[in-house]
């Protein structure tokens, strides 16, 4: 927060300056130990706040150190002879038993699941947001909002269990086998549907914030021109909140890409470039879990490959988050 809207910056308060602590004193100098205590407390809190930066640096260091260039001894993934960066980025086969690391196979699985999740979650979330912001009475909102909060608080391992032991056997299998398709126990569709369900509360609450930020005057102008509630919602409010909605979509897709437990349980462990949602795939996150669980020896190329995949995952989600924040900042500037 910038100085003008800080809690201490009302006119009566002493002005905040770059040197901070010293200048708010009004009366005479407090005792030495009090001043010392103040300094120590500020230092401690400064370190607490800095921990978040240290965390980010830690993540970047760990991923870089094990993927690109090793500072801590041993050799990083791309420093190994059996691994080539070009093959990693362009290859389509991921089979670490014979050193084939084509990350496309994992990205394809990730995108398939995230795509299905987007098809399920984004429209549902946006429609719910429109309903909550434009149609629902305050009473209905008081019922629906807590339900969405509960849904947002359900651990993802529960969704994974549900995808594997309910959605697949009681929904996906009967429906698609009656249409003549072959449905595997582990399939991208069930996982994608549940990831979609998981992102609904997030899309809904972020989109609703954006919709409610649209000034009343715009809606009233629409009504004054004889527009119906439908016209106002679809042609005035949603377009006006579009950047916020897009930001919420991007955040939700990034969440879907990074989701682990649902896909680890329900989507299978078959890295392949495929468009078949009824068969097993392997996402980047599921691969990381799979390598960890298979107790591959530390220091081997297979083991280091999980850092390379994690780096891809981190960069992918980071880019989506940054774009989303940039879009969000733009819409805030328009209406506030």
């Amino acid at each position, binding site marked *: *927060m910038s*100085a003008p809207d800080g*809690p201490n910056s*009302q006119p009566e308060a002493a002005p905040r300056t*770059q040197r901070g*602590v010293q200048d708010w004193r*009004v*009366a005479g100098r407090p005792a030495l130990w009090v001043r010392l205590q103040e300094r120590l407390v500020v230092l401690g809190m*400064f370190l*607490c*706040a*800095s*921990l*978040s930066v240290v*965390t980010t640096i830690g*993540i970047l260091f760990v*991923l870089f150190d094990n993927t690109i260039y090793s500072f*801590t*001894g041993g050799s990083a993934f791309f420093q190994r002879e059996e691994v080539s960066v070009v093959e990693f980025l362009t290859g389509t086969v991921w089979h670490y038993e014979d050193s084939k690391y084509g990350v496309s196979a994992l990205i394809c699985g990730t995108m398939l699941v995230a795509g299905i999740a987007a098809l399920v979650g984004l429209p549902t979330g946006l429609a*719910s947001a429109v*309903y*909550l912001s434009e*149609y629902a009475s305050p009473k209905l909102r008081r019922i*629906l909002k807590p339900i*969405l909060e*509960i*849904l947002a*608080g*359900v*651990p*993802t*391992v*529960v969704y*994974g*269990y549900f995808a594997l*032991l*309910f959605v697949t056997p009681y929904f996906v299998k009967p429906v698609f086998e009656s249409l003549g398709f072959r449905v595997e126990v582990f399939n991208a569709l069930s996982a994608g549907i549940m990831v979609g369900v998981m992102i*609904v*509360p997030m899309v809904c609450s972020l989109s609703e914030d954006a919709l409610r930020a649209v000034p009343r005057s715009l809606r009233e102008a629409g009504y004054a*021109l004889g*527009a*119906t509630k*439908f*016209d106002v919602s679809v042609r005035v409010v949603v377009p006006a909140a579009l950047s916020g909605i897009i930001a919420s979509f991007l955040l939700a897709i*990034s969440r879907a890409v*990074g*989701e*682990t*437990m649902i896909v680890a*349980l329900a989507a299978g462990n078959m890295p392949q470039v495929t468009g078949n949602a009824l068969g097993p795939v392997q996402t980047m*996150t599921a691969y*990381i*879990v799979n390598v*960890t669980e298979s107790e591959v020896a530390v220091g081997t190329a297979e083991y280091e490959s999980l850092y390379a995949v*994690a780096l891809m*995952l*981190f960069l992918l989600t*980071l880019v989506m*988050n940054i774009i989303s*924040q940039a879009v969000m900042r733009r819409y805030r500037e328009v209406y506030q």
Partner: protein
Amino acid sequence: MSGPQQSSPIFPPNSSQSDASTTGRGSSLIGNDVGNRRRRLGWMFEAVCGGAAWSSLAMLALLLVSIVFLSWGRVNWEFLTSYDSSVNPAKAGVLAGLWGSFWLMLLIVGISVPVGVGAAVYLEEYASNTWYTRLIRINLANLAGVPSIVYGILGLTAFVRMFGLFDPNGFVSRMVGGNVDAIRLAGVKIPLPFGPAVLSGALTLSLLVLPVVIVASQEALRAVPGSIRHASLALGATRWQTIRHQVLPASISGILTGVILAVSRAVGETAPLVMVGAAVFYRRTPGRIESPMDVLQNPGGLVHAPFDDYTALPMTIYSWAKEPGADYQQAAAAGIVVLLAGLLLMNGLAITIRNRHESKGGH
């Protein structure tokens, strides 16, 4: 806005039958049938949006009903008080997972509350608008979007293995000239690196929820009116005295609500625990404390527990859900019932605190 009016004279190709039959095309379209069509469209749109909103209730109901159904008859005292079993799935219980999750929760609160609240107080009360504080704020927003499994990898490397510094031929071993595998601190043996201990898991999950705790605490601090601070400062209190005796007590319920929600999120997280080595089919509790009574007989266990191996409730559920066989699947559903009941309890607590605070009229 001109859509309906413009399109109506030329829309016979996709007009519905009632439009075509009630009036002749072309004439008097501004009248009833455009209105009817628009009303119908509006009604359908509202129904679709309402359906989407209510579908989340249906989803929640379906989820809960099916899981209770799948777990039926399994959630009982024996399930809560027996260990996991890899040979007898019908007897597998969640005792080790419950205690593991309990210890995780305790340590997460102990780590993330002081650090999170401290960071929030710094950002809200002290920080001036420098490039560094701006960096911290942007960074917090980005950290909240990092997938939890990436935190797991950080925890695995930084806490469980400690970058291999203590490996037989790692940096520290070479410096000291021998193997270092533990240090003693006030009589407690702390393994180095931490290995797959409760502390590794708790540190990892604390980093994961820290952005949530910080943002919630910031909001709570921001809600404290400036007049309280001014009054305290005007009476000659120092800035820290003001924060400690006025601002923090005034914002405690908001902070508490945020902390409980953050911790309940951490307790349900599974992916980072898989990475930092929570055990599967594990038959021991941290510090060998199996019931509150054990604390009296074995108080040393309390000190050793954070450095012990462990498993956690969501980890147990995950390992069961992966096993084939109806018994494990029923056990997994029962484990989910226990986990959800615990989370519901915590969320209920948070809501109670929030409501009590609101009914007092803020501050």
